């Protein structure tokens, strides 16, 4: 009994290490930094409470993304989705990036951040969002182009 519980915890820990980064960044990109963190914590708590069910899923990350979406919808959209990060913590970030991010659609932000910022594959993002790879690619490219236009960064793709 005890060893089963420990095994479950190990499996869950492994699962979180693998899934949490994609989930955290995706929900933060979709709903803003603060609500994204709350939604991620809620989604992973839900995963642990329903661990036996989650283990049998084909696409647990995608399912938890939708759980996180449901949790995020319980919150009011804050006035500032993406707060300014102090320059000493992120010296290479443009001071206008947070404003430019807020101007993208939700899927454009998620796709652009995960694919161009964090180098996830289109397949991984498509599984997470539950949309086709073609749609992911379109969202990512449009999002990136908008960001570059907003920040007036030379397009060298």
């Amino acid at each position: 009994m005890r060893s089963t519980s420990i095994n479950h915890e190990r499996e869950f820990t492994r699962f979180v290490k693998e899934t949490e980064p994609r989930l955290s960044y995706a929900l933060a990109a979709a709903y803003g930094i603060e609500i994204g963190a709350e939604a991620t914590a809620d989604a992973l708590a839900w995963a642990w409470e329903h661990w036996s069910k989650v283990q049998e899923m084909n696409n647990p990350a995608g399912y938890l993304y939708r759980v996180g979406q449901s949790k995020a919808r319980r919150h009011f959209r804050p006035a500032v989705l993406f707060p300014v990060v102090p320059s000493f913590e992120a010296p290479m970030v443009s001071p206008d990036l947070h404003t430019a991010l807020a101007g993208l659609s939700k899927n454009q932000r998620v796709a652009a951040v995960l694919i161009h910022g964090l180098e996830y594959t289109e397949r991984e993002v498509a599984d997470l969002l539950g949309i086709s790879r073609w749609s992911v690619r379109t969202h990512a490219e449009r999002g990136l182009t908008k960001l570059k236009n907003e920040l007036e960064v030379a397009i060298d793709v």
Partner: protein
Amino acid sequence: MSEIETQLREYFDAAVERVTAEDVLVGHQMLESMTPQEQHWTWRPAWAAAAGFVATLAVLGGSLGIGIVAHRPATDTGTGRITEVLGEANEAASGWWLFMVAIGVVVAVVGALIARNQQHNSQRENAMATTIKTPPSTRLEAAERNNRGLVMTVVGLAIALVALGAWALFDQAAEPETAAPQAVQELIDDYEAVWNNYDGDAFSAVTTEDYTHTNGDFTSDRDTMASTIASMAPSSNFQVERIGDLVVTGEGPYYVAGANRLHDSQGIEDGISAFVIVETDDGLKVAEHLFVGQ
């Protein structure tokens, strides 16, 4: 400035709060270790229920009170049928109060359930929050966290309550209970004209076959009254004058009350008339007339 991809990575690495498996497991253990009393017992649902009940009665009761005061009948005296008429109005008000209490109970139950659910969620989230590192205050601007579902529910209930109160006021203002329907008004006009013209034949046209007229201890049928009216000598100078507006309630039969001043060669007498008006094949007719004089 560096490439946009680099900026995105650096921004999200710096800003996003990460959640570890340990956070989740410790939070879950803390929630499980709370006693049932700690998890569930709180005065908050009771306060929410009481507040919901009181607020509902205040809004709806206020609306009803305003309506009653605004449309209070001008005449409030008499006995017999008039007492019945006023009694029906009181019964209608009692029905409203029961309705409001029922609505209040529903609101109270919903409020208690919402508060209990919110309390449970709050305890759960607190357990989780203690395990997640709080970001430096300089990193994230504070954004107040709210439960959108709860607020939407409360706003919806408030809108429903205000709409119900507005409807009650509008309904009473648009169609006051004391306003005489046009057909009833015309029938009473004709009935009084019969008396003023001493027209026994016309009297039969505005009354039912089982019509009764009661004045003090005397009750007469239609034929008797028709004969009495026809036999009145114009020299008696008998005239019926209405004082003020009629008060009408009911939806067929109608119960009508009004004040009268009777003139004749011997002087003036004021009194209250109460009528029962019924629908017949030939239209509305007076079925009963009770007169209570000074």
